[in-house]
């Protein structure tokens, strides 16, 4: 190949470059839809794709989940164009404030953040629990003393462990006085399976999802705390918030909310609208 001349080299580089351009040309349109007729409102649904079963990649590799289907149902109700904005959870406030998305709707806990966003009515209850292996010998919260307890960063379970009125005192009994902080619960669960940690502080719906089909795990009977999920809007966006609330009422009344909920048995019992 050392006799590759300059022209061949140039054309080879052009080929590589055009591949790259083609790759990025096709990229922006994958999850987004922007072929709305003129004047249609585009509802930009901001969510985390790491949060099954509320918002995640389905078995087909497409975006889906309870929150995604509900948001699509709201858009259908009003004839809005639905635009998914799967964002990085740590950058959610920038995405919302800058208008990259219109709401944060992704199993988003309202408790403790009441003043930070304009909230829809809560649509799902949730409880923070401790997940352990059944044979671990841990049966009460007090048994967690000196144990390694995993939690996902920037979640309500994490906040609860640092809340003086929440479970800060319990946290101080953990090994080292701190939880083991993971980027995702999936990785935390791997560590639990591998025996690297003893327990995970997690919300019950995500925990059910992780445990489904696996018999050797269980929740402790004592809950860490409870909370509710709602949709967070920009604080000055009352019109949109009111519209979404009205649509939620209508979707509860016509059975859509229940029908979508039944597709997600892990969370169905916790859905709280219309109850």
């Amino acid at each position, binding site marked *: 190949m*050392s006799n*590759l001349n300059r022209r061949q080299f140039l054309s080879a580089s052009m080929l590589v470059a055009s591949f790259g351009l083609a790759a990025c040309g096709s990229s922006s349109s994958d999850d987004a839809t922007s072929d709305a007729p003129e004047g249609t409102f585009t509802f930009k649904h901001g969510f985390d794709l790491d949060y099954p079963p509320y918002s995640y990649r389905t078995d087909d590799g497409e975006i889906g989940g309870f929150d995604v289907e509900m948001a699509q149902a709201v858009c259908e109700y009003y004839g809005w164009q639905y635009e998914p904005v799967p964002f990085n959870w740590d950058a959610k406030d*920038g995405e919302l404030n800058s208008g*990259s998305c219109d709401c944060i709707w992704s199993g988003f806990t309202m408790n403790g953040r009441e003043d930070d966003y304009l909230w829809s009515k809560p649509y799902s209850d949730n409880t923070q629990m401790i997940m352990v292996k059944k044979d671990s010998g841990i049966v009460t919260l007090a048994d967690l003393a000196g144990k390694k307890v995993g939690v996902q960063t920037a979640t309500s379970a994490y906040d609860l462990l640092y809340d003086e009125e929440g479970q800060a005192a319990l946290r101080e009994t953990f090994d080292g006085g701190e939880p083991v902080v993971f980027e*995702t619960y999936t990785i935390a669960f791997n560590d639990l399976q591998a025996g690297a940690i003893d327990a995970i502080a997690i919300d019950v719906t995500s925990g059910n999802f*992780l445990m489904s089909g696996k018999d050797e795990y269980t929740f402790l009977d004592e809950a860490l705390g409870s909370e509710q999920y709602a949709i967070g809007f920009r604080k000055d966006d009352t019109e949109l918030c009111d519209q979404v609330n009205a649509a939620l009422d209508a979707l509860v009344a016509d059975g859509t909310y229940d029908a979508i909920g039944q597709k997600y048995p892990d969370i169905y019992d916790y859905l709280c609208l219309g109850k």
Partner: protein
Amino acid sequence: MTFQTMLATMAVGMLRTFGVFVLTLLGSLPLGMVVALLKKSRFALVRALVGAYISIMRGTPLMLQLLVWYFGPYYLFGWSISGWRFPAIVLGFVLNYAAYFAEIYRGGIESIPVGQNEAAVVLGYSRTQTFMRIVLPQVVKRIMPSVTNEVITLVKDTSLAFTLAYQEVFSLAKQISASQTSFMPFLIAGVFYFVANYAVEFGMGLIEKVLDYYR
């Protein structure tokens, strides 16, 4: 999710990774040379400004820089940033990598003995001719191993585009891992990165061979 679907979904993510990779190289390789030459400018002010640029680009996390490029226009000027996501990612990567490439180039340029410049002056070469015909060809040969290093790092750094919600291969690996409660997506991502970097190594090796015209 079947293994095929997983592979297919992640292959699409790998294409996006590749898009950022190629555009970053196309932008930063030439820009780095401009920066390197400005760093050797006659004017102290230009040298200072370029020095500050390189310090900031190398001294702050790329993840932070990406956030600033994307959200900055909104937070600083209140501009709408719709459609700005992908350009911001490419801009962030190009400006960051140009700083690293500039220093690699400068090291290469300064490694050429001054005597060659003096000889070129005696032979009546202009400054531009000296640089283009005598210095640059030698620099390119010398810096190839360092450039290869940087290019390989870039392949892996593209995963930082996840910060701005770009659905590249590692973001997809995390998402699929979460929904399938499986470690497999990370292994697949690892294989994808390795194959890409093996190709980079092979390609750069070829270029080095072509440039090795005196052996």
